[in-house]
C-alpha cells in the first residue's frame, strides 16, 4: 500500500458531494443590489432624506438582529443580507419626511417581532418589512400619509405637501388626477419614471422593472407571482375601475402607481412568506391582486398592496398544503 495516502484523513459526509454555488447570502445581496436603481431614483427625487431614512432603517434592522442573536446565544447571521434587505425594503416603503423614530420603530417591529420571535429567517409567517410598515401606518397614520412633491431638497427646505396619485384618484377622481399632471400622457410618464408623490422607493416603475429584470435573469424569481398579481390588478381595474360602468377603468394607472411594482416584484415574491409550489404561487398572486383592488376601489385606504400581501401571507402555508407539484408516476385509482 502506498505510504502517502496511508495516514491522510478524509472528509466523510452524505451525498451529494458537489453543490451549486448559490447561497442564501448571495441571493439576499443580489436582491439588495437589484433595488439600487430604485434607490438612486429615490435619492434623485427626494434628496438626502432618502439616504437618511433608508440608512436608519437598515442600520436598525441589522443591529437589532445582531443584538437579538447574540443575546439569545444563537448563530449570528446578520451579515447574510436578509436583515439588510428588510431594512432597505422598509425604507423604500416610507414617506420621505418622517421623524427619526419612525424608521427605528418600524425596523425593530419588522426584525424582532415579525422575524426573530417567530424563529428567524425561514420561519416568519409575514413579510417583516410590510408588518413594520403596517405597524407604523396604524400607529402614526398622520405621519405615514404625509406625502411630498418629488423635488429634491438638497438644502433641507421642506418640499410642498401633496397627495399621492392614488390618493387624488380616490378623493377627487380620474379627471382631477389627469388635470393635476396636465394630460394623460404626462401622468403616465410621471408614474413610469417616478416623479410623483409616494413612498421613497415605490414611485419609479421603470427603476423597479430594471431591478426585477435582474432577478428574472438570475432566476431568483419566476413569472408566477408578479404576473398573476399584475394581471389580476389590470383586469380588475379595467372591468370595475371606471366611473362610466364596466370595462371603462384605466389599468395603466393602477399598475404603475402606489406600491404595485415594488410589491409585485420584491415583496410578494419573498421566498419565506409566499407558497413554494409554482401553481400555488399563481393562486397567491391572484389573491394579492384581488385584495389590492378591493381595497383601492372599495376600501378606506387609497392603497392596498401592503395589506393584500400580508393577508395572502396567511394563506401561503394552506396553499402549500393543498397544491402538490405534478408527481412522476402518479397512480390513478385502478379497478382491482
Amino acid at each position, binding site marked *: 500500500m502506498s505510504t502517502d*495516502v496511508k495516514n491522510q484523513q478524509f472528509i466523510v459526509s452524505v451525498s*451529494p*458531494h458537489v453543490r451549486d454555488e448559490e447561497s442564501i447570502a448571495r441571493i439576499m445581496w443580489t436582491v439588495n443590489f437589484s433595488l439600487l436603481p430604485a434607490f438612486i431614483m429615490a435619492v434623485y427625487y427626494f434628496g438626502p432624506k432618502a439616504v437618511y431614512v433608508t440608512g436608519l432603517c437598515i442600520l436598525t434592522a441589522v443591529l437589532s438582529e445582531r443584538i437579538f442573536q447574540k443575546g439569545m446565544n444563537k448563530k449570528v*447571521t446578520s451579515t447574510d443580507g436578509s436583515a439588510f434587505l428588510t431594512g432597505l425594503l422598509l425604507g423604500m416603503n416610507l414617506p420621505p419626511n418622517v421623524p427619526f423614530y419612525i424608521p427605528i420603530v418600524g425596523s425593530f417591529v419588522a426584525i424582532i417581532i415579525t422575524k426573530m420571535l417567530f424563529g428567524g429567517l425561514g420561519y416568519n409567517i409575514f413579510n417583516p418589512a410590510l408588518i413594520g410598515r403596517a405597524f407604523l401606518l396604524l400607529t402614526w397614520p398622520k405621519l405615514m400619509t404625509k406625502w411630498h412633491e418629488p423635488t429634491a431638497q438638497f438644502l433641507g427646505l421642506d418640499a410642498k405637501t401633496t397627495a399621492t396619485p392614488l390618493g387624488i384618484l380616490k378623493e377627487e377622481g380620474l379627471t382631477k388626477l389627469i388635470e393635476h399632471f396636465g394630460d394623460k400622457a404626462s401622468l403616465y410618464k410621471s408614474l413610469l419614471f417616478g416623479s410623483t408623490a409616494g413612498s421613497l422607493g415605490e414611485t419609479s416603475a421603470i427603476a423597479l422593472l430594471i431591478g426585477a429584470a435582474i432577478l428574472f435573469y438570475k432566476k431568483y424569481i419566476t413569472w408566477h407571482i408578479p404576473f398573476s398579481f399584475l394581471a389580476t390588478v389590470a383586469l380588475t381595474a379595467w372591468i370595475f375601475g371606471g366611473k362610466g360602468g364596466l370595462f371603462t377603468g384605466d389599468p395603466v394607472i393602477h399598475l404603475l402607481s402606489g406600491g404595485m411594482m415594488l410589491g409585485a416584484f420584491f415583496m410578494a415574491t419573498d421566498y419565506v412568506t409566499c407558497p*413554494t409550489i*409554482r401553481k400555488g404561487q399563481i393562486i397567491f398572486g391572484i389573491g394579492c391582486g384581488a385584495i389590492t383592488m378591493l381595497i383601492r376601489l372599495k376600501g378606506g385606504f387609497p392603497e392596498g398592496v401592503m395589506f393584500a400581501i400580508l393577508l395572502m401571507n396567511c394563506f401561503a402555508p394552506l396553499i402549500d398544503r393543498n397544491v402538490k*407539484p405534478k408527481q*412522476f*408516476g402518479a397512480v390513478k385509482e385502478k379497478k382491482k
Partner: protein
Amino acid sequence: MSNSATFERGIHPKYNKELSSGKPVSAVKLPQRIVVPLSQHIGAPAKCEVKIGDEVKKGQVIGSPSGFVSSPVHSSISGKVVAIADFPTAIGRLVPSVVIESDGKDEAIAFRENPAYMNLSADEIKALIKEAGIVGMGGAAFPTNVKLSPPKEKPIDTVILNGAECEPYLTADHRLMVERPKEVIEGLKIIMKALGVNEGHVGIEENKPDALAAMKSAASGESNIKIHSLEIKYPQGAEKMLIKAIKNREVPSKGLPMDVSVVVQNIGTALAIYEAVRYGKPLIERVVTVTGNGIKEPRNMMVRIGTLLSDVIEQCGGLVEGAVKVISGGPMMGFAQWSLDVPVTKGTSGILVLTEIEYVASDEYFPCIRCGRCVDVCPIGLNPSMLSILAEKGFYEEAKQYNLFDCFECGSCAYVCPAKRPMVQFMRLAKSQVKP
C-alpha cells in the same frame, strides 16, 4: 433522432468528464492481495466456500448464493486464502470477506465457452448469468438473473441499456461503448433473448458523440435495436427517467420498471453478460473511472474485484496536495470514504477524489427559506422542502404522506439548496423511521 429525449425537471451540474473521457481503459497490475466481500449485492450474502490456507485460482467460486435473491462471488486472482473476517466496504458496512494473497501466477480455472451462445435457451442464459455472479454494475448491484426473471403477471416488451452515465466525472460506461460497442450490443441481444423481448434501446447522453457513433455503427445491422441521443441532464440515467425519455412511460409511484414492461440494464452489466455467456467468464473485474482533481493521473482502468482503493489510486500516480474527499461512485450518489483500505466491488463505477476547490463544505446549514428550487428540480415531483422540514422536526408519518418513499436520493434537491441543507440525509432519516 434530432430532438434529444429527456424527462421533466432535473439539474445541470458541472460534468467534468474531460478529465478521463479520452483515456482508454488500461489494465491494473496484478494486486498482491485482494479483499472480496461475500456480499456485494442486494439480497442474501454468499455462503463462504473456502477456508484459510486454501489455494484458489482466478475465477474460482469462493462464495455461493444462499437464496433466490443472492449471487456467487469469485476470486479475481490466484493465490492463497489468508483470512476470512469482517472488513469495511465502500458503503460503510462491515461485511464478511475473504482475503486472498496472490501467488503471482494469475492462473485461471478453465472457463466453459459457448460459441453458439445465441442458440441457448432463456433459462440456460439466466443460469450462466447467475453462475457468473453478475449483478447490476451501475451501483445498486441487484442480482441480474433475478431482474431477468420477472413474475408472469409482469410481461416485458422492452429492454433499455443505460448509457446515459449522468453522474458527473464518471466515464467507465462511456469508454466501454467507444472501445467495445460490438460486445455491448451482443450483451443486449442476449438480455433480449433471455427475456423473450423484441425491442432493444440504448440511451446515451449527447455529450458522448464518440460513444453514440460507435454504438450506432455496432447496431447498424440490428433492426430491433435503437440508439437514442439523450439530453445532458442529471439524473438522466435513473431508471425511471430513462424509461420516460425513451419510451414515454411513467413507472408508477412505488413501482418498478417491470410495471411498465421494461427492464433496464447498465452498459457494464451488458458486457459482463456477454463475457459470461460467450466465454463463461465470471464477474471478476470491471471498469472503474479513477478521477477528480485530487488524482494525479485520472484514467479508466480494468480493476479486479477486491483490489483495495489504495492500490488503484497508487497506480494513478497517487493523490495530489489538497485532496480532501474520496468517493466510491460519482459525486451525486457516491459514498465518501474514511479509509482507502476498502475494496473495489461489483458496483464500484468510479473512485473520485475531490480537492478543497471542488468540494463545497456542507457541514453548516441553515433553515429552509422555501425558495422552491428543490421543487423545481425534483425529477419525481416531490416537495423536498416540505419533506426536509418534516424530517427535521420528527414528523415522519406526515413525511410519508408527501410520497417520501418515491424519493430515490438522487441529490438534485441538495445540489441546488442555497441553505446547504443535507436533504438526502433528511430523506434517509425519515425513511428509516417509518415503514413504507
